[in-house]
C-alpha cells in the first residue's frame, strides 16, 4: 500500500513547466531519492510535498488523506534544509525542542524526547551549544534531530549533504542510512549526486526537465537504464545509435555486428555498454579493435580511452596490481551480450 502518493503533481511558472504531471507512490518506511541535474524539478517537487510551493495541478495524498491544500505548519512533515536552517539564537536542545513545544508537549516529556533524539544522532554532549559553535557535520545532525523529534510521518531531505566535504559526506550517508532503518521513517531525499542516491535509496526517482525518466531500485536502474539519460546520468556509459527492424541476438553499429541481451527490441535504438563491463581480448575473440589514446590511474581503478571504428570508448578496470595496457597499444575489446543494452532512442534533442 502506498503511504505517500503524488498524483499528476505539476508546477508551472507562467509558461515554464517546472514539474510536469508527476506520479509517484512511496511505501511506508521506504527511502526514496529524487535524483536529477539542477533545474530538473526535484526540489520543486519536494517543496510541493512540504507545502512551500503551491502545485499548479494534481494532488498529494498522505496515508489516504489529501494534503494538497494543507498549510505547511499543519502537515507535520520533518524537513531538513540544504542550509540546515537551524535557529541561530537557540541552543541545540531548544532547536530540537521547538517542534515539540509547538505541539504542546509538556516540558518534562519534551526534555526526555529531546535527549533521546540527540542521543540518536550522537549529539548528547552538545545540547547546550549554539549552532555556530558546531561543525558542519554536527549542524546537519542537529537539523536531522530537529526534524525527527516531532516523529513525522514523512522525512524530507533537501540536498542534506551539499555543504559537507567529500569524506564527511560518505560517513554521513552511511549514518543516515542506518538511522533511517532504525527509525523506520518514510524518507524522500533530493540530490543531484548519483552516488549518494545509489548509496542511500531503496528506490531512485530519476528526473530530467520536469519529468520522471525512470523509477527503480539502484542496482536495477544501473543495470537496466531505460534510455540515454538514465544510462549517462547514473554512472558512465558508451552509447551508440543503431536501428533495426528485426529482433535477434545481434545489432549493427557502424558496420559491426555486436551482441546484445535485449533480443526483442526493434526500431530507433541506442546501444549501451558500461565502461566496467568491457574487457581487453585477444584478436580472435575481440568484438572491435582500437588504440589506447589515454590511460588514467584513479587509485582503485584504471580508466582507458580507446579509439575504435565505432568511436571513442571508455572502459575501466579494477586496479588488481597487474600491468595494464599502455597508451598507444593496439587492443581488442570484448563484452558479454547480456551487458549490452538496447534502449529506445531519445526523441528529444540535447539529452546529455
Amino acid at each position: 500500500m502506498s503511504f505517500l502518493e503524488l498524483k499528476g503533481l505539476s508546477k508551472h511558472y507562467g509558461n515554464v513547466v517546472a514539474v510536469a504531471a508527476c506520479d509517484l507512490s512511496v511505501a511506508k518506511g521506504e527511502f526514496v531519492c529524487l535524483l536529477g541535474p539542477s533545474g530538473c524539478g526535484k526540489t520543486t517537487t519536494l517543496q510541493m510535498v512540504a507545502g512551500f510551493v503551491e502545485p499548479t495541478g494534481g494532488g498529494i495524498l498522505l496515508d489516504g488523506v489529501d494534503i494538497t491544500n494543507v498549510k505547511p505548519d499543519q502537515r507535520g512533515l520533518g524537513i531538513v534544509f540544504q542550509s540546515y536552517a537551524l535557529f541561530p539564537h537557540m541552543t541545540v536542545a531548544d532547536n530540537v525542542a521547538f517542534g515539540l513545544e509547538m505541539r504542546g508537549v509538556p516540558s518534562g516529556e519534551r526534555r526526555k524526547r529531546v535527549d533521546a533524539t540527540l542521543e540518536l544522532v550522537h549529539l548528547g554532549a552538545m545540547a547546550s551549544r549554539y549552532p555556530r559553535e558546531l561543525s558542519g557535520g554536527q549542524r546537519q545532525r542537529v537539523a536531522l534531530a530537529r526534524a525527527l523529534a516531532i516523529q513525522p510521518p514523512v522525512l524530507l531531505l533537501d540536498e542534506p549533504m551539499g555543504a559537507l566535504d567529500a569524506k564527511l559526506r560518505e560517513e554521513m550517508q552511511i549514518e543516515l542510512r542506518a538511522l533511517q532503518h532504525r527509525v523506520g521513517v518514510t524518507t524522500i531525499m533530493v540530490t543531484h549526486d548519483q552516488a549518494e542516491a545509489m548509496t542511500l535509496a531503496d528506490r531512485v526517482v530519476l528526473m530530467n526537465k520536469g519529468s520522471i525518466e525512470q523509477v527503480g531500485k539502484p542496482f536495477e536502474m544501473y543495470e537496466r537504464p531505460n534510455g540515454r539519460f538514465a544510462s549517462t546520468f547514473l554512472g558512465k556509459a558508451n552509447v551508440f545509435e543503431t536501428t533495426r527492424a528485426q529482433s535477434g541476438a545481434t545489432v549493427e553499429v557502424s558496420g559491426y555486428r555486436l551482441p546484445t541481451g535485449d533480443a526483442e527490441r526493434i526500431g530507433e535504438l541506442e546501444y549501451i555498454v558500461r565502461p566496467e563491463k568491457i574487457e581487453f581480448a585477444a584478436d580472435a575473440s575481440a568484438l572491435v579493435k582500437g588504440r589506447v589514446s589515454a590511460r588514467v590511474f584513479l587509485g582503485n581503478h584504471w580508466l582507458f580511452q580507446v579509439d575504435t571504428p565505432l568511436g571513442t570508448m571508455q572502459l575501466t578496470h579494477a586496479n588488481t596490481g597487474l600491468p595494464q595496457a599502455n597508451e598507444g597499444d593496439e587492443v581488442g575489446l570484448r563484452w558479454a551480450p547480456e551487458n549490452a543494452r538496447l534502449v529506445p532512442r531519445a526523441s528529444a534533442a540535447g539529452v546529455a
Partner: protein
Amino acid sequence: MNPPRNWLPYWLTAPGVLMALAFVALPLVITLSLSLYPFLPGGGVGDQMTIANFADVARDEYFHVIFARTFAMAILVTLLCILIGVPEAYVLSRLSARWRTVSIVIVLGPMLISVVVRTLGWAVLLGNEGVINKLLLGSGLVNEPVKMMFTFTGVVVALVHVLVPFMVLAVWASLQKLDATTEQAAQSLGAGLTTVMRRIVFPQVIPGVLSGGLIVFALAASAFATPSIIGGRRLKVVPTTIYDEFLGNLNWPLGAALAVVLVVIVLVVSMGMNRFVERRYKQVFQ
C-alpha cells in the same frame, strides 16, 4: 630596525578628524565649560567656576518634569517605532524587487523633506481647525474638536513619523542576513505566522532593532523642531527648554548645564541598553 612608519593613513584621516574636532568635540567642550560658570543677571557670564547651574537643574521641580516628559516621550517614540518599523521592514524585505523599489521611495521619501516642513504638515493635520478634526466633526463622531496640537500625543505621533524610517533602515540591514529558510523550518515544525515572527524572525533581527532603537531614542530625546512646533511653549521638552534659556532668558550657563545633562543621560541610557541587549541576545551578535 622597524620599517619606516607609513604616515599616509594619518594624513588621509586628518581632514575628517579635524572636522570632528572643530564641529563636535570643541563645541561640546565649550558647552561643558560654559555650564561651569555662574550666570550674572542681565545676561553676563561670571568668571568663578561653580556647579550652581547643575544644582539648580537637580533641585528644581520644573526641570524634573521637563526631563521626565522628554524621556517618557523618547521611550514611547522608540517603542512605537519598533512596533511599526520592524513589521514594515519585514514586509518590505519580502516584496518583489519592483514593489520594493517603489516602497523604499515611499518610506524614505519623507527624509528628503525638511523636518520643519513635515512637522508643519502635521500641524495642518492636527490643529483644532485641522483636516482630522474637520473630518471627525463632519462625520459626527465628535461634537467638539479633539485637542491634538500642544499635546503629548500630538508630539509623539509626529516624532514617530519623522523617526520611523531610521528604524526601518536598521532592521532592514539585519533582515538581509536572515536565512529565510529558518522561517520555513519553523513552519514545518508547526509554528504559525505570529509564532514565526515572535520566536524566529524578531530574535534574529535584534541587532537591527537595537541600533535602530538607539538612533531613534537619541534623536527623539534631542528633537527640537517637532516638539517646538507641535508642543510649543505649553509642552516643553529639554531641547526647547535649552533654546529658551539661551535665547529667551539669555541664561547661557544654565542652558549649557541642561545640554550637558541631556547628553550624559542619553549616553548612559544608550550604552546601558547596548550592553544589556548584547548580553541578553549574545548569540545573534556574533
